[in-house]
């Protein structure tokens, strides 16, 4: 069984936010005005969150790149009244934009606050429009969206592998954030496939998942030295 997952090495992350930018560009995420951003209406499927650790004066800042945790037991999927968010056959939590009624129950149910709502119809400057990614549908106003591990890339990778008559390899399918990360902090692959790096990294002694105690079984792992 394929279980796509991600391992993010916080000891390698420099907080450069290249993953954020790559994600926005890959997934046709609209930018909002500074006033709207101030209100908390920015959409960032991948967001580098800064967290302060330690007590003064021995403090340090740690960066947490935060995509959707792609829970194996997703609280958001349970509560959707119309099945517009679902766990697919590879364990990716998807969204059906055309079915979502915009009740935002899933956004409230998500303990990681990684579901985003389209408060207005998305807008792009005319100069940006030609660069929209044709593989990713543009969302209308009033629906929820979130990180999908760039699952449109998986489709392409599957077709390529099938055409070449071989198994899918790790390099065939990489989401934009993992592809762009300059320090290689974001590693992506099949958690169940021993030939993929993530299957070993997730068992690293530095590995943990966020709010593991909630039983949501996230498929995003973080690596961090205990200090």
């Amino acid at each position, binding site marked *: 069984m394929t279980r796509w997952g991600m391992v993010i090495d916080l000891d390698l992350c420099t907080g450069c936010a290249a993953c954020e930018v790559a994600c926005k560009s890959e997934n046709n995420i609209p930018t909002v005005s500074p006033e709207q951003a101030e209100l908390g209406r920015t959409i960032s499927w991948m967001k580098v969150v800064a967290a302060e650790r330690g007590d003064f004066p021995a403090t340090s800042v740690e960066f947490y790149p935060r995509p959707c945790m792609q829970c194996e037991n997703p609280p958001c999927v349970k509560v959707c009244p119309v099945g517009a968010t679902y766990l697919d056959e590879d364990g990716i939590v998807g969204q059906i934009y055309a079915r979502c009624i915009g009740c935002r129950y899933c956004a*409230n149910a998500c303990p990681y606050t990684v579901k985003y709502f389209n408060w207005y119809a998305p807008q792009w400057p005319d100069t940006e429009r030609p660069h929209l990614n044709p593989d990713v549908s543009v969302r209308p106003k009033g629906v929820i969206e979130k990180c999908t591990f760039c699952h449109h890339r998986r489709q392409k990778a599957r077709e390529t592998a099938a055409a070449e008559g071989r198994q899918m390899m790790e390099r065939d399918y990489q989401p934009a954030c993992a592809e762009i990360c300059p320090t290689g902090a974001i590693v992506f692959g099949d958690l169940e496939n021993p030939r993929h790096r993530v299957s070993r990294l997730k068992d690293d002694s530095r590995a943990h998942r966020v709010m593991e105690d909630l039983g949501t079984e996230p498929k995003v792992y973080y690596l961090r030295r205990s200090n």
Partner: protein
Amino acid sequence: MRAGVAEKLATMSPDEQALLRPLVATSRSYYVVLVILGAITAWGLHAYYLQMRYGLGRTGLNRPEYWGIYIIDFVFFIGISHAGTLISAILRVSQAEWRRAITRSAELITVLVLGFGAIQPIVDLGRPDRLLNVLFHPHLRSPLLWDVMSIGLYFTACTIYLYVPLLPDLALIRDSEIKAPRLYRILAAGYRDTPAQRARLERVIGWLAIAVIPIAVSVHTIIGWIFAMTLRPMWHSTIFGPYFVVGAIYSGIAAILVAMVIIRRAFGLQQYFRDIHFDYLGRLLLLFSLLWLYFTFAEHLTAFYGAEPDEMRTFWSKLTGAFAWPFWLMVTFCFVIPFLLMIWRGARTPLGTLLASVPVIIGMWLERFTIVVPTSVNPRWELAGVGQYLPSWIEVSIMVATFSGFIMLYMIATKFIPIVSIWEMKEGREHSVQDVAERVTGYLPEAVGFSPAEPG
């Protein structure tokens, strides 16, 4: 009032005259109020149009404050709706004779306010055009879908429960020909008030009263569960089902009292809504103020004692932080004021219950505010620079318009149906006095071997 109608009215019994007069005689101030309420409602519709056209961005909602005034109002209005039908059904089932004058006005509140409550989550939808997806793609694991089903059932049951006991009165209006004969011929549905029909009617009302109680309890329980089923701090609580039901009945009793004071005054029905009614309902209000305190205390103590860090953030934001004002105002309005007033017999009057009920209604709105908002702005994974909520004028307008729309429909309804059940008053006079005397006699031991008439 036309002369012919006045003549017809003059031939009827005093109960009928007093209770049918509002249907045929309307004061000028009634129209003035109606026009003002209509204007406010139209303003709210305009606000909703703007929201539909431009998107929910026109509200003050954001991430993580996904739910705001609309959901608060949803819980609030559905709560008010528990007044009528539930109270009326409980009083009927327990054969409380003092119910006769108050059931109709209470049941009418339920049906109308339920409609206004049920549209709130639709107003809150990002895609109201896809509303029917809940029927086309139902996902039964979602508490929202349980809610759609329970509210749908409740609305149906309450409407029937309002309509069936109306039949004898509708037939009376039809036969008296004082108003819109064609309309009442349809509404009365051929009811002739024969003894057989009356017996069947009372049997149906009896069944409905029993059926409606568990349905009403399920409705607010499920609304509580919408919150409780998530893993959010201070929402994920097993007590939410009963806590919401108690709060709903509490706000409902307060709403009945306010409506009774206004109706009594506006239609001169002092003889029907008597001091004893305000005394009894005041006692109920007192009981529920204590129940409310008990649940609120239990809920907060459990969170505090367990002291889970995520829960504590929300907890302290309510008790001493950003939401301390609404929280302590809620405690004052839901407990301190009504409790101090209602323990005092002298305050269980129309004026006293009004002074207690208005704070309860405001306090119960604040309760839903302090449930929805503090948890929303304190997600488990703290976000930097967000966590605020300032409702926009659109949200406030829609809320005010909901209130005015409800009051407007209620006013219009009082022009078409008697606000006190005429046949139940008549039945009370003709049968109940004797029935109750017999019932009380039945409670007592039979006087065997004891005959005061023959002193020995």
